[in-house]
């Protein structure tokens, strides 16, 4: 073996040793370092996400009073229970402001009572709220009746600016039938011409209630939402009646 051969052999051995060290020691360590770097990036992203969520949560806490007021307001439009007495009272008040007689109201859910049961579909739960069909019968002049319709739909309406104004139940009128009043008007006005112009309006409308088991405010109080309020003794002392989540929200709103 010549010197040149020996040198080549030594060089190959040295190269093999260096490559062996690279593959057995250095390269795995570098891979581990890359993995840890990725872990750092992931942790940074996790922190960024958590910070973003914390920011939105803080923002939500800032919006709480507005959201609470909105839900209290919407509790009138869409209550957690049918609240038919309140609806009757509301309709009666509305007819008093017009020269309209509130003759009857029929609900399909109860099914009993009035003989003038117009076909109204059973209460149907849809995607958001539960529908409560009603049939109302009013007596009045044409003008008074269409103004009454305006008033019924005006209980809950949206302004051109997009804001919701809630003054009562949200009603969707499904059908309106106008016919001459057979009795010639039952009001005690006495004017025969006015009696001749009396119409009977049969209105089928749909009111909405929250799905069963869902309350208007979800147990929230003016001080905070249910879970937050439960953890705060100060809140508990201020709102001692905040235990039930299914109680009508409007009652809970007034401490």
């Amino acid at each position, binding site marked *: 073996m010549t010197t040149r051969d020996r040198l080549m052999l030594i060089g190959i051995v040295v190269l093999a040793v260096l490559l062996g060290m690279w593959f057995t020691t250095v390269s795995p360590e570098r891979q*581990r*370092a890359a993995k840890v770097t990725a872990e750092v990036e992931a942790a940074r992203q996790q922190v960024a996400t958590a910070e973003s969520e914390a920011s939105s949560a803080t923002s939500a806490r800032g919006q709480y009073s507005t959201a609470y007021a909105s839900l209290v307001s919407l509790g009138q439009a869409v209550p957690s229970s049918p609240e038919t007495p309140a609806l009757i009272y509301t309709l009666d008040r509305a007819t008093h402001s017009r020269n309209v007689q509130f003759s009857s109201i029929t609900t399909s859910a109860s099914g009993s009572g009035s003989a003038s049961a117009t076909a109204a579909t059973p209460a149907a739960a849809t995607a958001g709220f539960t529908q409560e069909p009603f049939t109302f019968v009013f007596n009045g002049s044409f003008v008074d009746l269409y103004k009454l319709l305006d008033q019924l739909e*005006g209980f809950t309406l949206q302004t051109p600016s997009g804001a919701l104004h809630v003054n009562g139940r949200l009603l969707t*009128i499904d059908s309106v039938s106008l016919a001459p009043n057979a009795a010639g008007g039952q009001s005690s006005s006495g004017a025969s011409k006015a009696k001749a112009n009396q119409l009977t309006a049969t209105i089928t409308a749909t009111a909405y209630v929250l799905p069963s088991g869902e309350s208007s405010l979800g147990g929230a109080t003016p001080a905070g939402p249910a879970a937050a309020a439960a953890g705060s003794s100060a809140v508990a002392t201020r709102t001692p009646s905040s235990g039930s989540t299914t109680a009508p929200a409007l009652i809970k709103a007034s401490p």
Partner: protein
Amino acid sequence: MRAVNLIPGEHRQGAGSLTGRSSGAALIVLGMVAGLAVLVLMYGNASHQISSQKGQVASLTAQASAIQARTGRLAPYTSFVSMANQRTQTVAQLVQARFDWSHALHELGRVLPSGTALATLHGTVGPAGATASSSASATPAAGATATSSTPAGSVPVFTLTGCATSQAVVAQALQRLKLMDGAGEVQLQSSTQSAASSSSGGGCGDASFSAQVVFEALPAGPLPSVSTGSAGSTAAAHSGGANEQVSAQGKAVAR
């Protein structure tokens, strides 16, 4: 005779080369040392990176956990605000999906010519393509994607019966009915010249007619951005008289 090189070894050609007297062994050693140094350097760098970044990961994870814990404490606020927004959007969609009955009746009174009187009017909001019968009441659309009982695409239809002083006035009435805001189609169902006048409709004339006014389908309104800004109703709710606060204050805003 054997040739003898008299030039001293260190001065011979090639003796000053890189390999020198060791014939390249030194270079191999140097290369090995350099290679080892590079490998050690890379290994050390990677190890340092791992140790420092592991600490960084631990720190970031702890930071994320702390932020998430803080966010978790505010989660009830987030879900409450989300619920308020969702409910507001749903109510706004229901409000937007309604047919303006009052305006339609107002338009009807506006366009009917003199010499015409309506005996009955039956208006429904039904699914597109359905023709309204004189006795059918509107049925809330079961299984509709929207929660409204009059979902987008529903077609309002008025079925009118009445009388006119002559057939010419009936024709004029049909033309005029097309002028109603939102009226798409006016169909005459019948117009009968009666032998004996003043048989129906309050004795307005000889020709009794029946017609149907089909309105344009209810539009699919875009998802509104809504703010519930009913300070009055909110205050009313707080005072415990939410359901009794029915006033006409919203009407002026609505239309």
